[in-house]
């Protein structure tokens, strides 16, 4: 059986890739995808622990996360598309409209 730590290392790896994406990429689309990656890292960890404890709560919780992530992706993409239409650009460093 694959030990729990392997799953956790995978989750950490995925999470860090996500974090790196959010921190380094400037295109809003990539940022959104990186966030999805982080959520999925959490899902991996949840499922792994669920299997370790023989309890299904974690898997159920992962489904919730997927559902929320889907909703988020839908809304986020819609916003990005709307911004792209109005400004021809989705570079997040240039999107300071609400702040300034």
């Amino acid at each position, binding site marked *: 059986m694959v030990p729990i730590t392997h799953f956790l290392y995978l989750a950490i790896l995925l999470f860090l890739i996500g*974090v790196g994406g*959010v*921190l380094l990429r400037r295109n809003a689309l990539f940022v959104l995808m990186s966030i999805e990656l982080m959520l999925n890292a959490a899902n991996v960890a949840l499922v792994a622990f669920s299997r370790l404890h023989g309890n299904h709560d974690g898997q159920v919780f992962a489904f919730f996360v997927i559902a929320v992530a889907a909703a988020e992706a839908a809304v986020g993409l819609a916003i990005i598309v709307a911004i792209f239409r109005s400004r021809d650009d989705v570079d*997040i460093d240039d999107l*300071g409209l*609400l*702040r300034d």
Partner: protein
Amino acid sequence: MNAVPTQDLLWIILAPLCGAIFNLVFGRLAMRKLPDRTAREVVHLVAISAVAIACFLSFSVWWDVMVEGGVRRLVQTVYPWIFSGETMIGFDLLLDPLSAVMILVVTGVGLLIHIFSVGYMAHDPDYHRYFAYLNLFMASMLILVLGKSLLVTFVGWEGVGLCSYLLIGFWFSDEAKASAGRKAFVMNRIGDFGFILGLFALYTVVHSLDVDAIAAVAARGAQSPLVTTALWGVPVATVATLLLFLGCTGKSAQIPLYTWLPDAMAGPTPVSALIHAATMVTAGVYLIVRLNFVFALAPLTMAIVAVVGGVTALFAATIGITQFDIKKVLAYSTVSQLGYMFLAAGMGAWVAAIFHLMTHAFFKACLFLGSGSVIEACHHNQDIRTMGGLRKKMPITAGTFFISCLAIAGIFPFAGFFSKDEILVGAYTYASEWSPLINYLGWGLGTVAAACTAFYMFRLYYLTFEGSFRGDEHTWTHHVAEYPIMWVPLVILAFLATVAGFLGWPHALGEVTGLHLPHVLERWLEPVTATSARFAGPYYVGLRDGGFAHDGHVTVGAEMGFMGVSLGVAVVFWLWARRLYGDGFSKEAEAWKARLGKLYEASLHKYWVDELYDAVVVRPFKFLAKLCYRFFDALVVDGVGVGGTAGLVGWLGDVVRVFHNGNVRRYLLALLVGVGLVLATVYGNPTVSSLEPSAVHRVQSRPDLGGLRTTLGAEPYRIEIGFGSWKKVIDLGPAAPGAAGGER
């Protein structure tokens, strides 16, 4: 006592008070709605009848109850005024021989001056206000005199100060007059500050401010707690009397607080006569005699009172010699005569002090009213350099003025002779810790001052009434005539100034002339001075041995000697004044002026005391006020303190702003760094990272806000936080008997 209903005492006060209220409320209405003449009639009839009622009641109570009925003390409880805890200040009135003398003088002289005012103020537009204030003054003065509790006296004390302020600044459109009023009030307030603190000092020992209660405590003499308890290392009696005496110097214009009185001459002249000569300014003397049993317990204070009185008497007299303003001369004369009274009081000659107070009220009121007539006649000119020869125009005024001059100078047999002589004899023979030095000093000051008095009074008389007129033609020809309403009071006062002295016929004169009159006043006041007369030891108040005294009287020879000296001095200086000023300013007078040089200058400029006070007190005060405001309040407290705090908060905000720039990715980075730090702390720390369960090491946390009860439940629990070697233990929950050693 049954014959007279007890509310009489209260009505003595209420009558003028009602008059004041009437004129304050309706006077203005009357002056506006009624024809001028009628309105004035209404106003002064109300005012005068109010005082007349008070006067009548005073005389009837005095005669019926005290003289005929033989009752020496009348007490009337009106209502409890201020009370709290053990403090109980009743609004009670007391009529005893001392206050009887005072109310007779106050209402009697007051009535005459009210009548005189009708003529003097006849054309003033604020007629009603004038009489309202005057009535208010009478009421306050009577409260002062009749108060049984010293705090009630204090009400009158401040009340007369207020009326004095209002009346000095009566013509307030003139800035200088308004300022004179304010000066009087502030200086009186300085005195009142002493007065009230003196009361507190007495209160700590007596636990009451009732005169009788204080007398009862003081009656124990040297064993009295007034002497045995100390305040700031000095017996309470001394502290209290010194503070009270500060009050007296303010009210009675003694050194160092006398400078307001000459300025107070800015008020209408009848006011000067009533308030600043006859009644209010004598309140200090009254207070000391009223509390003679406490003052007698404080020999130090007595000595100070005597010296201050004597020095003031001489000091003011030397200023009076060179003044040219008729009222200023009289003002300094008043300060000087008040000094005499304090000299007497400080020498334990209580009766002499009250005697002089009474005679002074008569002749000084007469002098002031006379000067009022002169001023009125000379179209409100007060400079004696432009007067002279007025006797031809106003013989009655001149006559009464002359009689009063004789009285104040101490010429036999006018009133001043007897009272002044009694003071000088008392000063010479008084037994004190500092005898005989203080006796020589007191007597010497008094005698020299008497010489000055005779000189400046007759100088004033001759320059005003004799010789030839030095003013302009217009004034002389359009001279205002003497009206009965103004000269009748003068005549009455001059009469009193002539005969009042016989109330204090000295024993020695009886021996010499065979005319054995009783010393009426001494007998009359005997109950008041009885307590202090019993004191022994250092607190003994009485005559010094040494060949002067026998049987409580000074020996005939000694007393005759004193009389001869003072009479001789008075006559000599009278004649000298006549020679120098009998017909205007003579060449000899000018020669003396040149000869005295600087001394003359100093006297003319009142020794520059006003300027000194201005430099030493007024200016530093103003500077301090400005400094407090501009520097301390605006700069230190509000600038550095408040502004600094606000600035610090603002600066911190600016610093923190750098991080809150709205960039989500930067927030995320901060988040990561934070998480990393927390994880490092937890995993770098063996206490927390070792997951060993232990008995005390149980962290409970139920995030149940509503369940505070269960969270803080009966079980104790402990949180330990550690990092490296640093460790903190927090005990929560109810006291755990076993775990009491934890840090709080």
